[in-house]
């Protein structure tokens, strides 16, 4: 007796099939802009939306960030990743790029003056060092890359991408033990580079 017949909802259309994996010539860097936008949007959402802050207690989890981007982009028909490690590698690069861009923008704003912020708030002062701290770190990482490229990649994946050791091992095609050793060596070298000033 229902007033409206029971008809099923229209079935979801099949997703467009994914393109074949990119050939080996496809560089990680070429895929970065796409992920860049997405990561930035996600970060903005996590940090910017009051709902987001409520949900996540106001903090940002690098792993959550990258995973959310993966979920969003994995199905994108026009972009393809060979596999998840490939995507994670791109995401780490994109995250590095975002942070460096942001740090430069922030530093430029500070240099530009006109925004003389007078504050005695310790936290605010501390966070104001962030652009310089990040840029220094990034420069140290550049120096590390010129000496030991794989070590720099491990740092990039772990520090910028928030990847676990196993994920890094998969992305670089080495053993987990090697990743652990590389990380230890990289940390030592980076410390030297940073402490040199």
């Amino acid at each position, binding site marked *: 007796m229902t007033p*409206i017949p029971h008809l099923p909802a229209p079935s979801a259309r099949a997703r467009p099939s994914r393109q074949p994996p990119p050939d080996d010539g496809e560089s990680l860097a070429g895929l*970065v802009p796409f992920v860049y936008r997405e990561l930035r949007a996600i970060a903005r959402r996590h940090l910017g939306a009051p709902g987001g802050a409520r949900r996540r207690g106001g903090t940002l989890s690098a792993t959550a960030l990258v995973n959310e981007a993966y979920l969003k982009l994995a199905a994108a028909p026009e972009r393809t990743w060979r596999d998840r490690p490939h995507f994670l590698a791109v995401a780490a690069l994109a995250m*590095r790029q975002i942070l460096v861009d942001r740090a430069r923008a922030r530093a*430029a704003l500070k240099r*530009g003056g006109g*925004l003389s912020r007078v504050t005695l708030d310790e936290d605010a002062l501390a966070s104001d060092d962030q652009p310089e701290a990040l840029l220094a*770190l990034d420069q*140290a990482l550049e120096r590390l890359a010129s000496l030991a490229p794989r070590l720099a990649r491990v740092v990039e994946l772990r520090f*910028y991408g928030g990847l676990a050791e196993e994920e890094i091992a998969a992305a670089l095609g080495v053993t987990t033990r090697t990743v652990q050793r590389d990380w230890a060596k990289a*940390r030592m070298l980076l410390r030297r580079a940073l402490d040199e000033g």
Partner: protein
Amino acid sequence: MDAPDCRRPPTPAPILPPERWHALEPLLDAALELPPADRGAFLDDACAGDAALRAELAAMLDECERDDARLSRPAAERFASLLDERQELDHVRAALAPHYEVVCELGHGGTSTVYLARDPRHDREVAVKVLAPELADATNAARFLDEIRLTARLRHTHILPLFDSGMAGGRPWYVTPYVEGGTLRDRLEDGGAMPPAEVLRVLRELASALAYAHARGVVHRDVKPENVLLDVGGAVLGDFGIARAIERAAGADPSAAAGAFTAAGFGTPAYMAPEQRAPAVEVDHRADLYALGVIAYEMLCGRPPSGRHSRGDARAADEPEPSDPITARLHAEAPAAPHPPDEWSAILSRLLAERPEDRIDSAEELLRELDAIEPALAAPRAGSAGGRPRRQGRGRRAVLDALAAACVLAVAATSGLALWSWRTTAAASARRVLVVPFENATGDLALETLGRMAADWVAQGLAQTGAVDVSSAPLPSGGPRGRTLRDLAREFGAGTLVSGTYYLDRDSVRLVARIIDVSDWTLLHPVVPVAAARAAPQAVLEPLRQRVMANLALTHDPRIAGWVMGAPPPTYEAYEQFINGLDIFAAGNWEGALPLWAHAAALDSSFVQPLLQSVFGYMFLGRLAEADSLVRRISARETLAPFDRSMLDFQRGQISGDHAATLASARAMVRATPNADLPYYLNAMAALHANRPREALEAAAHVHVRGSRFDAPWSSTMYWRVVTAAHHSVGEHEAELKAARTARELQPELRDIVWLELRARAALGRLDALDRELGRLERLPASRDGGSPPDLLIRLANELEAHGHPARAREVLRRALQWQRAHRRDAERHADALYDLARTLHRLGDDAAAEPLFARLAAGHPADPRYPAYQAIIAARRGRIADARRIAERLRALRAPYDHGLTSYMRARIASQSGDRSLALALLRQALAEGFESRTTLHADPELAPLRDEPGFRELLRPEG
């Protein structure tokens, strides 16, 4: 953004001399592999007395093991404040105050970040572009500002004017009008290829802008879809001269400029003329024409030209230009890809010529060429390439509509507004107003629902006035809008569009509505913005509605103004739950919607729509006791809006089976919202049940079935069932067939719709190609409450027999049996399938086989009156009249609540087969009075065949209106 390496400084000094590191690393690795306790011995051994080496390695090993706070947390966490762009927004806001009040970030491109701001001096919204820091670093800011001031002198309808410029935090900024329509890039990404007529319009506008600027010696140099804004008045070219300004300002350091350009994605390769890619070649206005060619191609085909015309393949410039037209060449390259229509071939070839001197020489010449092809475009040919994209567009809309479909009743919810209507003859009438969800520019997803809520609220208000024809439509999927709003308005035949945007202004939400005249896409009324606290955004709704209605009263009908509304808007959270429920409902998850609606009602006890919606939900699910109890709860409320009251009466009538009351309340709903589809549909359905098929047809004619929510499969089916049944019961079978065929055009893939056509053809005796149609019916998908193939075949056989085709009827029944043999396992598992099989056997006269099946069903389902009823019918037919009467007597006890005349109807059939004609007639009358709905099947019911010559039976079936 390009590869990150291009903007890093040159390789800095290494941390250690590489050869030193290469000597140390293997030793470190080996040591790290050992347990710490064994490392001392290893170092002693490996260093062989070299104390300095040993000390260095020991120190390094020590450092390797030491954690470093700077690296211990992932960068995104440690440097989260860098990712928090609100801080940057604060900086920009502070720098631009008090001249501009920055509202939110609109977008971020390679060259700049764009903010929406308010210009309080002129009380207008503006876009502020702040140059990206990378570019700011590489350019001389003062020279940059000088350069863009030159372009500020350009004044043209299709050039985005420059209002202001300056410096903030070391970064140059400039101010332009805020154009809400989005960019051509958005439009292309959203809708793909555009109709040739629209392409022609946009090209004309851009060509006229370029002609004007070129005449003043200004070359754009970065024409691309991202720089074309789609405003209500047409396409507007933005960022004029910015490329040149950056290049000149960076002139002192060419390498820095080059780096900045690459980094910023400037001079987007796909749109760059070949000469622009060559270093140190002075480019002229013809580079802009090349870019326009790429854009034209992309608008026509939905993608930029491929092959040699793609992404700035520099080698292409060295190869000779083939002489054949570009379209032919592209056909050869990728025959399956979309191609520009032939009329465009010559223009595109000349715009995309590799050498500037082979190109169309000037924008004026392009304008003349465009004039020349216009007549060819005005007469579209079937199957032309230009037609393809539009079909895609329709597909997209169909999906959207399907998603929106189940909300037909939701409709009811917000009193009629989701009553999406459509004028079949889509003559754009100013009185037809399309309301679309407002755009969320707050960046806060928690406020996403406000856009739909605002549109619903405005539409609801307008629908109740009866002075204008109101439609609502979902936005083209996500993202920035405006790009297809005009198409949408045209599809709906709307002459007036209500849209809007809302954004955050500190702790409040500001909502700006726009009323647009679709015919010339101009702003009919700018509505004064309304604001509310961010925590309670629903407070904007009532003032918004009043303002929109006051404005429309000026141009449309004075009755619109001052309309007194019923209940206040619900709280935001409640509405959000409610609307989430509608979405789930639309997706076919009726059970899942119920808890959301319950939650919505709990969040705001004055919000009655979720409860009304739940009643329909329970009715859909056949949970009538719960529906009934909820109706009682709602009835206990003191205040209900007139429409809500009528809807509740309708539901009560439906549940109790009171046809007269149901019809009266449906008519009241029509009076309450005279321009909505749903009340008319409900009126038609109730009229049919109340034996008023002509009233049903008249009401149904008001329902818009194309482009509305009634063109989704399930809603469409319910509509066409009513229409064809009404025609059938007044004997207008030609009209019935026509309606069924229209239904089938709209929904070709539904078993139930095919059946509607077959019923009409059975009545008309047009039975050609019946086998093919039956095969189709059997193959097509089932609908949730639609009949199984055997059920539909049995019902078709009834119609065939009643309309004088007994042989065809048997054919169809044998076919049903055949189908069931092929699906034998169904009958073993499902009572419904077994019931179908038993009925088929019975209809074929094989009662000996049918009887034990009915007995099995009756034993398994003792509360269901249908199975013993068939046992009784068979008993009567086999001469066991006393048995039949005894079973009929027992059936009285099986009458369950919400039976809606089913038991009485079954008893009437037994009486008919037992020869008790007057009793049968009395029981039929009783069944109809108790709410029996299938009056239109009675004339073909074979069990009632003995009554067909009875005057009382014919009287019963004669339409009353």
